[in-house]
């Protein structure tokens, strides 16, 4: 009795599911064809991250120190990019800063001395600023446990395709995380909570200067940062609008690289790409370092 009633009902459910599944299968196939997955953000042990293949550049000491201070206060906000074998593509300064932070306080000075331009920073300033960094276990999570967020570019094997890796590096470097207005004010508040202030004139050794730190994190001009801070102090939080465009020079560079790659792909010649991209990538890196000072 129940059986004869139950069967048609069960059949409509199960046969309907077959129809649903069939249509979803078509979507699956289309997605697999259209969009090979390019990037996955994941937490990875810092020790698994390998150095860049052709290390054209060395991490710059002053930049690493600023980044380390910001990471110690706020955590690693922008995941560095790695290839599918966890080889670094973009974010040398961020990764170097993380390594420095995870080292024993006694090892930090020796590690720092290896960086480019470390000798140009006065020893007392280096000692004071390194000494002010928290020990590894007091770092924001997940770094306290030696893990960092990374964007894994799964289509790229940097060892076998250097041109693609360099193009990816350039692209990663101009794509900054977009901070919303509340996020920016929250960052300002957090930095103040970590002892960042706005000293008059050049910051002295051991002093944590708020504006340079914000420039570094947000990649915005001094003028914009001053504007943000004025509004923050005046209590006028909501109306501030950020224009998130990266600096013009970086956009021009990226456009140039993109057009060049397209043109060479059409012609089928790829040989000069790598050397040119290396140069452009170096130029971009230099521009960013200068901008963050």
């Amino acid at each position, binding site marked *: 009795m129940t059986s004869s009633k139950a069967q048609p009902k069960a059949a409509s*459910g199960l046969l309907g599911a077959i129809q649903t599944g069939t249509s979803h299968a078509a979507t699956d196939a289309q997605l697999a064809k259209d969009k090979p997955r390019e990037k996955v953000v994941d937490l990875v042990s810092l020790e698994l991250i390998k150095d860049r293949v052709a290390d054209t550049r060395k991490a710059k000491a002053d930049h690493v120190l600023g980044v380390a201070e910001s990471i110690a206060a706020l955590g690693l906000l922008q995941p560095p990019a790695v290839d599918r074998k966890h080889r670094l593509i973009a974010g040398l300064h961020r990764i170097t800063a993380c390594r420095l932070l995870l080292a024993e306080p006694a090892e930090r000075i020796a590690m720092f001395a290896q960086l480019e331009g470390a000798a140009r920073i006065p020893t007392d300033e280096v000692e004071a600023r390194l000494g002010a960094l928290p020990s590894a276990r007091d770092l924001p999570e997940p770094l306290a446990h030696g893990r960092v967020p990374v964007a894994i570019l799964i289509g790229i094997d940097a060892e076998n395709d250097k041109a693609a890796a360099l193009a990816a590096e350039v692209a990663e470097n101009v794509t900054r995380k977009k901070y919303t207005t509340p996020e920016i004010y929250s960052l300002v508040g957090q930095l103040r909570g970590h002892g960042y202030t706005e000293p008059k004139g050049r910051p002295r050794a051991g002093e944590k200067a708020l504006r340079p730190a914000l420039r570094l994190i947000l990649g915005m001009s001094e003028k914009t940062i001053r504007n943000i801070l004025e509004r923050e102090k005046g209590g006028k939080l909501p109306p501030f609008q950020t224009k998130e465009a990266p600096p013009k020079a970086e956009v021009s560079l990226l456009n140039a690289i993109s057009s060049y790659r397209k043109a060479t792909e059409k012609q089928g010649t790829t040989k000069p790409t790598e050397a040119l991209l290396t140069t452009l990538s170096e130029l971009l890196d230099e521009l960013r370092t200068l901008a963050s000072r």
Partner: protein
Amino acid sequence: MSCSIVTIAGRKGGVGKTTLTLALAAHYIRAKKRVCVVDLDPQGSATMGLGMPINGAHLAEVLSGDIAPQPMEVARWDRLTLLSGGAEVETAEPRNLRKTLSSLPVDVVLVDCPPGFPHLDLAALGAADSVLVAAEAHAFAIAGATRIITAAAGIKRAGEPLRTALVLNRVDERRALDRHAPQILNGALGVQLFTIHQDTALAAALNSSEMPPTTGRAAKDLKAVVKWLNR
């Protein structure tokens, strides 16, 4: 002779993919076959069921085609090796998986797919000689199973569509759905259909990382699946 690669998939979670994989592994090793379990699950359920540490780093590299597979010996089960699963597997972009797995020095390779992750399912189907689609007698599971069956139908082996069977797990005929489903589904999906009955001893064994029992309803039902696979 090279090994036989069996992919166990289902798309939906909790339909018995891993239980079926490990029950099959136990069956084959008791028949003196050398078996390798490939755990494609970022959660590493099969790895956990075998009492091994969950770490997908090696498998992720194997999937990317970068290195040759070096399966671990499973301590508790003789003649069984494992490519362990873990979170790292999720980000791998598999290449040439059929070629890679064919090189394993075993008789049977069992590829246990995760729930979700269509790209891992597709790679595992591309590697397979036969596919077992795990499901339950329920619309949610059948919708997921149909996605796998449809994808498998598009893959050819020597001009023929990939050998695919639907395995209804945990069947209990006291439930109306379980009683009617085989008849309703038979023919509707165009694949071979097997049922494996609810078997508490099987679940209990895997829960404590022990080998599944040699007797019981599930062990008996499994013989028909193995016969089909060996054909």
